[in-house]
């Protein structure tokens, strides 16, 4: 989701980061020696801007992890410093300079979005500040050769194959109809899904419509004529809701699936609970819903206590990003360089998934999580490998 929307700031970001990279000094944060009693870790993202709704939950997750750690009265306490970048690359670049030179943070959770991550990645690299993003999903971020950059969420390129493979395993379809509107994110996801279906020898038919169209009757006609076993839509929930309603009204009964752009309760409102029932949604994010069990349930309850709301998108990932650093501090590492070294070998059972990093900073486990609309509510079924559809 964030990848498509935030790609736009890249151009500006690239320009600004060049300038700042030139001014940035090389000093690593944190003091050496054994008498350190506290370290500062930053959290950066859009905390008050238009996309704050997808950054507040990971912030809450990180705050919760740090609170839990500090409550244990450790030798070295952690102070979480929040930086509100508004999701803008130019703000991120000036904030990170302040964070490194004045606040002397030793590690950074974030930035939340891909554009700002791209903008400050080089500076973090030169200042030897490790970063773990809970939510930046642009695939290109891992290709910069940065050794201090990490993320705990699967990237956009993992999502399409994730959806297709899950449907192949769950429904063994012979024919799939892949739809999208004409937005960049939507077409990209639909292309990836169609490609993966074809690799699994599923016949694929396609159609596409304008993002602002309201009458999808020609699309419904095509789908009805093709009589597919599954339908996958690449796009956001507003269009997905309208489409799903018209498909069901047109008598199309095949399983309907979509990606993270449609993972919102508003999909159900838009389509109507009856039409939305059974719809399958996939996301690189792991959002516990009230009915989860086990460790995720513990997370759900603790988060609700700490933040006073139900966990939302990227909450578990924010918690896991913070935990990765907490493990490093627990192991006695208090400088950026040492923490980064520790991250190369860190391995633990996170709230969202098992956390372990590849050399390029990508998560070893790039699980896609499956959700389904059950009784009019979006419900988490689990990671794609183990999720079982209901009904």
């Amino acid at each position, binding site marked *: 989701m964030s990848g498509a929307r935030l790609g736009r700031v890249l151009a500006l970001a690239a320009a600004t980061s060049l300038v700042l990279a030139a001014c940035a000094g090389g000093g690593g944060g944190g003091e050496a020696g054994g008498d350190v009693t506290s370290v500062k870790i930053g959290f950066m993202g859009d905390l008050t801007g238009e996309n704050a709704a997808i950054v507040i939950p990971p912030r809450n997750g990180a705050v919760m992890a740090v609170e839990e750690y500090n409550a244990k009265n450790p030798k070295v306490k952690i102070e979480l410093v929040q930086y509100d970048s508004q999701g803008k690359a130019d703000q991120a670049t000036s904030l990170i300079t302040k964070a490194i030179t004045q606040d002397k943070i030793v590690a950074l959770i974030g930035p939340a979005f891909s554009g700002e991550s791209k903008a400050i990645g080089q500076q973090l690299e030169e200042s030897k500040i490790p970063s773990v993003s809970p939510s930046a999903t642009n695939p290109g971020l891992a290709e910069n050769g940065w050794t201090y950059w990490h993320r705990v969420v699967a990237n956009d390129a993992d999502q399409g194959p994730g959806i297709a493979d899950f449907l192949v395993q769950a429904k063994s379809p012979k024919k799939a109809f892949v739809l999208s509107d*004409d937005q960049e994110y939507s077409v990209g996801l639909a292309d990836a899904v169609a490609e993966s279906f074809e690799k699994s020898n599923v016949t694929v038919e*396609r*159609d*596409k*419509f*304008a993002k*602002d*169209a*309201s*009458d*999808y*009757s*020609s*699309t*419904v*006609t*095509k789908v*009805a*004529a093709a009589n597919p076993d599954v339908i996958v839509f690449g796009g956001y929930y*507003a269009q997905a*809701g*309208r489409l799903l*309603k*018209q498909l069901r*009204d047109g*008598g199309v009964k095949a399983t309907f699936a979509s990606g993270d752009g449609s993972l919102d309760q*508003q999909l159900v*409102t*838009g389509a*109507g609970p009856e039409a939305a029932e059974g719809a399958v949604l996939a996301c690189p994010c792991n959002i516990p819903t009230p009915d989860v069990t086990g460790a995720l349930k513990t997370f759900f309850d603790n988060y609700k206590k700490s933040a006073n709301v139900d966990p939302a998108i990227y909450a578990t990932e924010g918690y896991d990003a913070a935990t990765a650093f907490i493990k490093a501090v627990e192991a006695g590492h208090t400088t950026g360089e040492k923490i980064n070294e520790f991250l190369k070998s860190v391995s633990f059972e996170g709230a969202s998934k098992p956390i372990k990093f590849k050399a390029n900073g990508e998560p070893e486990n790039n699980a896609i999580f499956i959700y389904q609309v059950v009784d009019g509510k979006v419900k988490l079924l689990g990671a794609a490998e183990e999720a079982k559809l209901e009904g």
Partner: protein
Amino acid sequence: MLDDFLNQFLPSTVGGLVFGSIYALVALGYTMVYGVLRLINFAHSEIFMIGTFTSLVVITAIAPASPLTGIALFGVMLLIIVASAAISGGAAMLLELVAYRPLRRKGATRLTALISAIGASLFLQELFALVIIPWLTGKPGRNQQSAARIVDRDTVFTIGNAAVRTDHIIVVVAAVIMMIALDRLVNKTKIGRGIRATAQDPEAAVLMGVSIDNIVRVTFLLGGAMAGVAGALYLMEFENTVFNVGFVLGIKAFTAAVLGGIGNLRGALLGGIVLGLIENWGAIFLGSEWKDVIAFTVLVVVLMFRPTGILGESLQKARA
């Protein structure tokens, strides 16, 4: 390809007729105002949007637990149509009073009025997004708003492999009734004669005792009411609306008006239906993302050979 065509032709035709009817109703407002004032009323798409929201509010207030049938359905449909027509018609009159009349009084050029129209269009969209929709629904104004279902999607009969549903019939029948009523009103009544006289020659009409201000007001009222009916039918059919729902639809309806012959009421009807059908037929071959390309290509080709649109004849000369 031929297989696709045979499989999809009849269902596409049904879909095209239904959406074409909505285009046609909205196109009437463009065509009437153009006929009388030579003004392209770009804010007309927002009058349509106001119609969808009026119906949304009415349906939400009634809150039917399940889709309606029989008399109850007829009553609720009539209620949303009348309410939307009244509110949209009133809004259109108000729009004329605020955005166009002062300019007309000062003898401003048509270009000035056009700019005023574009401004009014944006103003109304933002007014709804920022103030009115949050106030009406209590939800963020830029979100899509959904209404409950009032008409079941039962198949009434089938033609070949095309299912014709209750909601399809309601849209087409209601649209046709409204258009016949409007046609009779313009052609058979005194006020209709006034409209035609003003369209033909405003100065001569004044000399013959026609009150231009009244005629313009009635023209906006009628055009707005038609857009309101279109809004009610749209909301019944799609059950969703949003503050900028009229934007693309308005452009299409304007295209339909030009295609049929702007200023010509029957042309608007024909243009709407033809546009709806061509969009859906074209989509069979090239995919739904080509709808707009196909529609506008047809428009350009038609205008190359018939610059005044399919029916050509304009409101001032319409006799029958």
